[in-house]
């Protein structure tokens, strides 16, 4: 890949902050959007803006076509069988809440069990906790090893006849662990348990095929994927989506409304009440085209090279400990440095132009598991270079020197 040329597609990478060139190592927080996606959204707002699924105007039909074409791009990206299995949402969080509030509320009864893993983001914990509390169900947790890998053997015991759903992340946003979701799904299905996969951190790094995985639900956010915020998708097997009740009521999701009775659209329409973020959907479609042109394999290779290089260099720093040493990792590195709180590290790196995340990463139970209040996390995208990592390493060394 011609990284120099790719970097020109991201104007933010040329910014200077506080006198230092920006080194963006925070793609796990939000991916940068390429110019083509930004311009596609602007074109929609400037020349094409109207509403979708509204009436007979040429303009509305055109907008609907663009919007639905973006849905088809998501279908292809996830390897789904039908476009009817792709529901637009505001993002991963909304998609999980949708499943919890429709599928979950239908199938979970008092005394039932829901199963998540110890490395989940709050978005894949809290909606299930809320559902469990409402229904009098129990939330159980798949444990992890110190290296940050799921202890799969525990599944045999954790899955019972009362387990109604297993929700697991594909890639940990903190540890970078790539979980063997295909195997997990096979084990869960063998016991009759459907599986939701949180793909927010996976889709930017690896090729996903929901049919090969046999996932019941797969969710992701556009903005982690070089797309805009405010758009994401829920993939659900059609049989599930058809059986699920609608969630939000309103315009767009109905077939007919009378004072006596409302009938609903078929999936995915029945889950899409109100006017959607049309420009965002079209922008995400453009971002998917961009990634497709770069080639997901080449993206993965570049990111893997950065992961290996950064791991080697950071590990050599005395007092620095990397959290998450799974055999299969995406380009996310969390670390702590003895005697330096991650927030101090974050501020000092920020002063060097290095943009990283310091905090609990919306994974407080995982922080508790490792007995740390927070970590510093660097995450790498295809536009990053080894030179970016050199700047990170020297900034970390400078901070350590200051705290000596």
């Amino acid at each position, binding site marked *: 890949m011609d990284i120099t040329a790719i970097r020109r597609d991201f104007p933010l990478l040329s910014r200077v902050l506080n006198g230092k060139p920006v080194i963006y190592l925070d793609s796990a927080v939000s991916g940068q959007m390429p110019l083509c996606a930004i311009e596609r959204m602007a074109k929609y707002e400037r020349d094409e803006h109207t509403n979708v699924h509204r009436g007979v105007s040429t303009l509305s039909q055109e907008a609907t076509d663009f919007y639905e074409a973006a849905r088809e791009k998501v279908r292809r990206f996830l390897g789904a069988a039908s476009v009817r299995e792709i529901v637009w949402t505001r993002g991963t969080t909304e998609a999980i809440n949708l499943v919890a509030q429709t599928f979950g509320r239908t199938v979970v009864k008092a005394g039932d069990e829901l199963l998540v893993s110890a490395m989940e983001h709050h978005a894949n914990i809290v909606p299930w906790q809320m559902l469990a509390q409402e229904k009098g169900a129990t939330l159980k947790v798949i444990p992890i090893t110190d290296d940050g890998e799921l202890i799969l053997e525990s599944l045999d015991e954790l899955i019972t006849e009362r387990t109604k759903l297993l929700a697991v992340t594909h890639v940990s946003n903190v540890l970078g662990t790539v979980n063997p979701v295909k195997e997990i799904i096979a084990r869960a299905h063998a016991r009759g348990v459907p599986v939701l996969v949180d793909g927010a951190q996976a889709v930017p790094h690896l090729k996903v095929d929901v049919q090969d995985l046999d996932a019941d639900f797969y969710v992701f956010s556009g903005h982690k994927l070089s797309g805009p915020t405010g758009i994401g998708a829920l993939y659900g097997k059609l049989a599930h989506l058809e059986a699920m009740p609608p969630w939000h009521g309103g315009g767009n999701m109905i077939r007919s409304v009378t004072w006596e009775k409302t009938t609903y659209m078929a999936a995915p329409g029945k889950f899409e009440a109100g006017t959607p973020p049309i420009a965002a959907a079209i922008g995400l479609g453009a971002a998917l085209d961009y990634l497709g042109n770069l080639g997901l394999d080449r993206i993965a290779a570049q990111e893997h090279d950065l992961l290996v290089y950064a791991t080697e260099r950071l590990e050599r720093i005395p007092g620095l400990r990397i959290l998450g040493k799974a055999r299969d990792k995406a380009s996310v590195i969390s670390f702590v440095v003895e005697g330096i709180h*991650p927030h101090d590290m974050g*501020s000092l790196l920020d002063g060097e132009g290095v943009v990283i995340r*310091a905090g609990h990463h919306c994974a407080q139970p995982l922080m508790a598991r490792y007995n740390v209040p927070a970590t510093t996390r660097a995450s790498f995208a295809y536009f990053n270079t080894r030179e970016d990592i050199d700047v990170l390493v020297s900034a970390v060394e400078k901070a350590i020197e*200051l*705290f000596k």
Partner: protein
Amino acid sequence: MTDPRELYQQVILEHNKKPRNFGKLDPCTHHAEGHNPLCGDQLELSLIVENGLVADIKFQGSGCAIDVASASLMTGIVKGKSVAEAEAMVAQFRGMVRGELDPATQAPLLGRLTLFSGVKDLPSRVKCAILPWATLHAALKGEEEASTE
């Protein structure tokens, strides 16, 4: 923004490494816990207030260098002061790190603690510096919990 390195002066780094008045007073007359939900900083303050004076004060907890140094220096400066003076310091410290008060002219009670004034240029860290002071304010008012949320 100024270089964050300017904030991490020797005094702050040294108090972070060797915090003063670290521990817990038991028994105590006043007590409060402070939390910074954003970063997970936790702080527990215990005080002995006698005849309107802060006779003794200790803190314990974990947090970033800004938080720990702020607590260490705060406990040092309020010890022996009247409750009214301590409250006035709380107000001056808050005003200073929020950039509302000029450290040179409007924070006379804070002495060398004006070295925290640079925090105003790091908005995400203002709450770290304030946490011990918000907890002190809560303790003096008889509240058990303070949060910088």
